[in-house]
């Protein structure tokens, strides 16, 4: 959802950082996208490529690091991994879960020259 707008945000963040570091161009952009974040990875790749044209990051490699959705299972009293919201605990099948991670989207770092 809104991958185009997210790509625009990424462009802003990347360009600002690149300029602040006197970069001539950006060769790599690394994003961290949690599996529970509302982002479709392929759409993000497409949007990124389109949106970076004309920027310092045009042609930059895009690396997307997918992070697991993590949650706390209240019955198991343990941290578990879930693939999607609404999935049960893999160990005990309960839905009494509290999501603890994997729902964020971040620009991690960039490689500049």
């Amino acid at each position, binding site marked *: *959802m*809104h*991958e*185009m*707008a*997210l*790509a*625009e*945000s*990424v462009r*802003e*963040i*990347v*360009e*600002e*950082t*690149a*300029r*602040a*570091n006197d*970069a*001539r161009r950006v*060769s790599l952009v690394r*994003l961290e996208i949690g599996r529970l974040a*509302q982002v479709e990875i392929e759409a993000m790749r497409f*949007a990124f490529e389109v949106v970076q044209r004309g920027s310092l990051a045009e042609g930059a490699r895009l690396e997307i690091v997918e992070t697991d959705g993590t949650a706390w299972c*209240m019955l198991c009293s343990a941290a578990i991994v879930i693939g*999607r*919201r*609404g999935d049960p605990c893999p160990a005990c099948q309960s*839905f*009494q*879960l*509290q*999501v603890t991670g994997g729902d*964020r*989207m*971040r*620009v*991690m*770092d*960039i*490689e*500049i*020259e």
Partner: protein
Amino acid sequence: MCMTCGCGSGETHIEGGDAGVHTHADGTTHSHAHPHGHSHDGGAAHSHAHEHAHEPTHDDAHGHGHGHDHDHDHDHDHDHDHDHDHDHDHDQDHDHDHDHDDDHDHAQGHTHSHGHAAVHYGLGAAGGAAPGMSQTRLVQIERDILAKNDGHAQRNRAALAARGVFALNLVSSPGSGKTTLLVRTIELLQGRLPVAVVEGDQQTSFDADRIRATGAPALQINTGKGCHLDAAMVETALARLAPAEDSVLMIENVGNLVCPAGFDLGEAHKVVVLSVTEGEDKPLKYPDMFAAASLMLLNKIDLLPHLRFDLQACLANARRVNPAIEILQVSATSDEGMAAWLAWIERGAQAASQQRLAEVDTLQRRVAELEAQLARLQGT
């Protein structure tokens, strides 16, 4: 395209004048309000979109990037008083030099410039430089992609808390009965709590008109092609609406069970309205929205005798994606269940105004302490 949602170009219009929030070709939105006094939460990455006055007939063909993001890991207050001088050339890159009259208390050893540099760590690879040799460097950023919206949202949250306003973000698909429910809620809260409403729709002011007919103040935001309200729109609306102290603010979002889930407006809670004619499987089909909500209002329960709606399955489905979700069954036409909903609102409003009073109290005590200190120093 719309800055935050990428939903195609369009003009966001906030009723009440041509000084609306509008979207430029490059996606920046500008409004003619100047909410510049703000404080920052410690450790939060935030951005400010600088809103400045333009002539309404501003040439939209060029883009300027005005947002700048600061990463700070300390608390400080700025009052930003800066004059925007608009004689700047419209090259692709330009910097705004902001003269800030502020005193920063910086944590020891922290340095940053008030150019537009993000704080960065780990300038790895080549330390020295040989002329003509390109060096690749890895620059760590670690910034949330939705930071811009969240910055506005945090400011909204703080502004609402300062006035003890209990704000709810009402979300649902179109036709769930949000507006009718809202109208009935306001009627029943007459004399109990003051209510103000921000209405979000692509087009028309039908909903704001219906709210105003109850006597409550309402402001309509038309998003044009936009599919959800964002925090910047709400910030502008708040400045115009100026909700009363210790009141309730209802933000009726654009009818959409998908997009509003990801956008914090600065509210205390998201309340999802699901009507019994929509089917018991919706919480599973739209998990992000039901996971983001604190309360689900199951609406139109007066129609249950005419439907094959599996009530228990619906409740179970909602709790599956959000074990902590509260659920109230209501009908805005028969008034069934409305008492519990009103009580929920009143509890929240009570908490918000108590929070405000507690903060006033803390500050007053601090003032008294400082005055006593001053008196001792002055030997009076």
